[in-house]
């Protein structure tokens, strides 16, 4: 995939990681005591507390890794030489050179075809002479 598409994919994956992170944390967070007036909330020690403590670390590590990957891809962009006008000028130059080379090629091709015809003509004449000289006895 070309570098710009890779960059776009990376941006989209950063977005996906972001909302997955916040969504998972919001959905799976264990209840927390808000104020001393209210009693301690009933905490069900299911799989929540065991695996949950690692979730923020893992997900934020993935997010930071994705952001670093984006920076690496940005560094891999080819250097933008000049601007639009410089590119257009280069394209005009290349087109002119292409036309010149194309015409030269055409000339050479025509000359070569002419010579080929001449050689074929001569060859057929020589073959005819050969046939005429070698009379069957």
């Amino acid at each position, binding site marked *: 995939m*070309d570098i*710009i598409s890779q*960059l*776009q994919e990376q*941006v989209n994956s*950063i*977005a996906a990681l*972001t909302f997955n992170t*916040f969504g998972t944390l*919001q959905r799976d967070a264990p209840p927390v005591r808000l104020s001393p007036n209210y009693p301690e909330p009933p905490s069900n020690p299911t799989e929540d507390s065991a695996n949950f403590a690692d979730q923020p670390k893992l997900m934020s590590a993935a*997010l*930071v890794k994705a*952001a670093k990957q*984006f*920076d690496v891809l*940005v*560094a891999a*962009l*080819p250097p*933008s030489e000049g*601007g*639009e006008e410089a*590119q*257009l000028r*280069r*394209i005009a130059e*290349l*087109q002119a*050179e*292409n036309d010149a*080379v*194309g015409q*030269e*090629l055409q000339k*050479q*091709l025509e*000359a*070569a075809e002419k*010579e080929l015809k001449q*050689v074929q003509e001569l060859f057929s004449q020589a073959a005819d002479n050969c046939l005429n000289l070698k009379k069957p006895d």
Partner: protein
Amino acid sequence: MATATYPPPPPFYRLYKDYLQNPKSAPEPPPPIEGTYVCFGGNYTTDVLPSLEDQGVRQLYPKGPNIDFKKELRSLNRELQLHILELADVLVERPSQYARQVEEISLIFKNLHHLLNSLRPHQARATLIHILELQIQRRKEALEDIKRRREEARRLLKESLGTLDGQ
């Protein structure tokens, strides 16, 4: 701009009353639109990439003739990370005010994508330059090939002429 549930058809049909008898009496169709136009209350443009203001989105990176894409992309990335951290803070302390932060984050994403899309014409021109260079190289090689073969053929003919004369 007038809006109605069942608007009547535009009144231009009256101009074409004598079209069958005299096709020149009716006006010509309008030329194709170029640039920006309004259609059903929305703004569109015929340019390849509408600028961010046309879509009603604030532009975070500086405008100008030549933008340093790498620098802007990197700074937008840093901004994005900062805003994600801010969102996490807001959710912990003032959860009801998330909307502003979410909007900021989506603004940064739109800017990122617009910047990447504006790289595409540059990439297209660079591809064109590359293709032209390859084509010129191939043509030059073919030219050299033809010249060499012609020289070879001429040499062979001279040789054979010399052999025939020598007999």
